[in-house]
């Protein structure tokens, strides 16, 4: 069984999830024998308000260059350990992200829906807690506040 194809990208500017998926599909058609039968994907977008309920001007995403990419590779490989998983895509924003903009895309292609959905959920949860990213909420008045963790599942 070939190792799953892992595609990990950090995006310093906005990305379109559907275009990202189409680009990934083209890669998979070339590198696999057609597209796998099952695919699960998740898109996370920036909320329009802060954790305290105020209107959000922007979210800033800081990362640890080098470690973040390596850690995402490790997490993707671990989540894709089921033999049915054929490919994993992770796109994650860094920098300043506006309300409503996509911040994360995780997609998993597999031979069956179970491994596709499980791998997608596991990887999303793993990257929220084990990949070094930090969010700062910016308000319209120019003040910023670092978040101390994630929203609950």
């Amino acid at each position: 069984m070939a190792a799953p194809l892992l595609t990990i990208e950090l995006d310093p500017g906005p990305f379109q999830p559907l275009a990202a998926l189409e680009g990934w599909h083209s890669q998979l058609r070339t590198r696999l024998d057609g597209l796998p039968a099952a695919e699960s994907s998740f898109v996370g977008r920036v909320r329009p308000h802060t954790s305290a309920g105020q209107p959000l001007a922007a979210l800033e995403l800081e990362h640890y260059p080098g470690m973040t990419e390596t850690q995402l590779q490790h997490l993707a490989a671990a989540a894709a350990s089921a033999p049915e998983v054929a490919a994993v895509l992770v796109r994650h924003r860094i920098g300043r992200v506006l309300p409503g903009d996509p911040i994360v895309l995780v997609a998993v292609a597999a031979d069956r829906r179970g491994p596709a959905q499980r791998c997608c959920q596991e990887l999303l949860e793993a990257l929220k807690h084990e990949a070094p990213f930090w969010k700062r909420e910016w308000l319209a008045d120019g003040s910023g506040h670092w978040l101390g963790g994630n929203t609950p599942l």
Partner: protein
Amino acid sequence: MGHTPELRVLLFAALRERAGWRERQLAATRGATPTTVWGQLGLEPADPAATIRVAINQRFARWDSPLAGGDELAFLPPISGG
């Protein structure tokens, strides 16, 4: 006697802003661990292990992991990705 490579210490996000610096070079003393470096740099809080994680050479490590000259040590405040 060669030059002993220094430790490179990195801070991120809220930790960096609270401390007012991003990166420091330190002499690697014998027996150094993330715990001893944290104390040596006078970083807050005094008992960081509950909230702050450490990485050595860009991999998660323990607060009592031994450090060697040339290592990159990073202190990581609570992660909020995704």
